[in-house]
C-alpha cells in the first residue's frame, strides 16, 4: 500500500492511497497477475453510511469486509490503513483473542471504523485514539483533517504508537507511507517510497490536486501488480473518488 497526506499552496488538505493486496497468494502465469488481487477488484465499492437519512461517513471497501481501510468523514477527518510487518505480529494477538487470554485489544480495521461511528471525533481525537488503543496487530494509520497541516502517520506496535509523524514537521507539505517505518530504509527489492517522494516533490505543492495525486499513484512502482484501487480524498468536503487500478506488464510484482 501507499498512503499520502498533504496540502496544496492554499492549505487545502488531501489524502490519497493505493491499496495493494494479494502478495504470495498465488500468481496467474497466463495473465501475469496476482490471483487474489484479480478476485478482489470486482468486490471494490464505495459505501455511504447514512443515519436518519443523512450522510455520516464514506468508505472504500471490499464487499463482505466490514472494517475500515479507507474512509472519510466530511469536514472531520480521513483515515487509511497500511500493513506493517513486525516480529510481534498479529498472530500473538490472534491467539490471545481466540483463547480468551486478552480481549482488551482492538481489531485494527474495526477500531478505525469505530472512530467514524463516534460522533465526537475530530482529527486530534482520532490521532490520539489510533495511537493509544491496544491492537491485535501492528499497523500504520494515516490520518488527515480538514484544516491546514492536519496530517499524521501513526506507526503502531500492538501496545501503543512507536512514532507519530506529523505533517509540517521539518517544513514538510506532504508525508507518505508504504509498508516500512519511515525512519528506516525499505527493502531494496520493495522500495516504493523513494519514487513516491520523488514524484510528489516533482509535482510540488502548487500542483497538489486529485489529478496530481492520481498521477503519482499511477507511477511505477507505486503502482504495481498488487494495486487494486486508488482513492483520492478531500477531508474538508468529503469528496471521495475511487478508481480500480491495473498495472499491465511490464510492471513490478509488488
Amino acid at each position, binding site marked *: 500500500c501507499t498512503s499520502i497526506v498533504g496540502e496544496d499552496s492554499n492549505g487545502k488538505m488531501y489524502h490519497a492511497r493505493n491499496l495493494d493486496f494479494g502478495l504470495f497468494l*498465488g*500468481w496467474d502465469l497466463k495473465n501475469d497477475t496476482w*490471483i487474489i488481487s484479480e*478476485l478482489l477488484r*470486482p*468486490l*471494490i*465499492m*464505495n*459505501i*455511504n453510511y*447514512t*443515519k436518519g437519512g443523512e450522510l455520516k461517513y464514506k468508505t472504500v471497501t471490499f*464487499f*463482505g*469486509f*466490514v*472494517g475500515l*481501510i479507507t474512509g472519510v468523514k466530511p469536514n472531520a477527518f480521513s483515515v487509511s*490503513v497500511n500493513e506493517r*510487518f*513486525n516480529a510481534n505480529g*498479529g*498472530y500473538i*494477538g*490472534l491467539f490471545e483473542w*481466540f483463547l*480468551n487470554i486478552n480481549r482488551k485489544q482492538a*481489531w*485494527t*480495521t*474495526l477500531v478505525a*471504523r*469505530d472512530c467514524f461511528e463516534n460522533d465526537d471525533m475530530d482529527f486530534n481525537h482520532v490521532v490520539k485514539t489510533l495511537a493509544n488503543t491496544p491492537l*491485535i*496487530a*501492528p*499497523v500504520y494509520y494515516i490520518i488527515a483533517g480538514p484544516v491546514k497541516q492536519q496530517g499524521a502517520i501513526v506507526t503502531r506496535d500492538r501496545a501503543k504508537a512507536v512514532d507519530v509523524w506529523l505533517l509540517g514537521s521539518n517544513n514538510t507539505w506532504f508525508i507518505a507511507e508504504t509498508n516500512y517505518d519511515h525512519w528506516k530504509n525499505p527493502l531494496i527489492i520493495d522500495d516504493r517510497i523513494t*519514487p513516491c517522494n*520523488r*514524484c510528489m516533490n*516533482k*509535482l510540488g505543492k502548487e500542483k497538489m490536486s*486529485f*489529478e496530481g495525486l*492520481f*498521477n*503519482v499513484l*499511477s*507511477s*511505477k*512502482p507505486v503502482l504495481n501488480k498488487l494495486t487494486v484501487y486508488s482513492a483520492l480524498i478531500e477531508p474538508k468536503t468529503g469528496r471521495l473518488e*475511487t*478508481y*480500480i487500478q*491495473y498495472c499491465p*506488464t*511490464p510492471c*513490478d*510484482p509488488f
Partner: protein
Amino acid sequence: LLVRTEPEQVCENGKYPPDPSTSFVPTYVVNLDLPPSQRWQELSRKYQKPLSAIVTYIKKFVLEFSPKLQKLIDLIDNKLGLVADSLPEPYGEEIKGIANATNIELGELVLYNIFYEVFTL
C-alpha cells in the same frame, strides 16, 4: 517473481481521469438505522458470487499447499464462526447478516474480515 523487471521509473502525467470502462467503482448506501444483521442484505444478493469466488479460492490455495490442511479448513468452518460473537458490536452482527444472506460459512467470512491480522502470520 522476486526479481524486479526494472521498468523505467517515471512520474506519470495525464493519467487522470482514468478510463471509466475499466476503473469505475460503484457507490452504495448502507443505512445505519437498520439492525446490523440487515444492513448488507441487498448487496449480499448482488455480490454473492464474487465473494464466494474469493473464499473458494483461498480454500483451494490452502489445500494446494497440503491436503492435510483440510483439518484447518474444517476448524475454520466449525469453530471460527464462534469468533463473530466475540467481535465488538455492530460488526459481529453485520458479518453474521452477510453470511446468512450469501450462504457463505460464517467462519470463512470471519476469516475474510480478520485477514489483515491473519496475514501478519
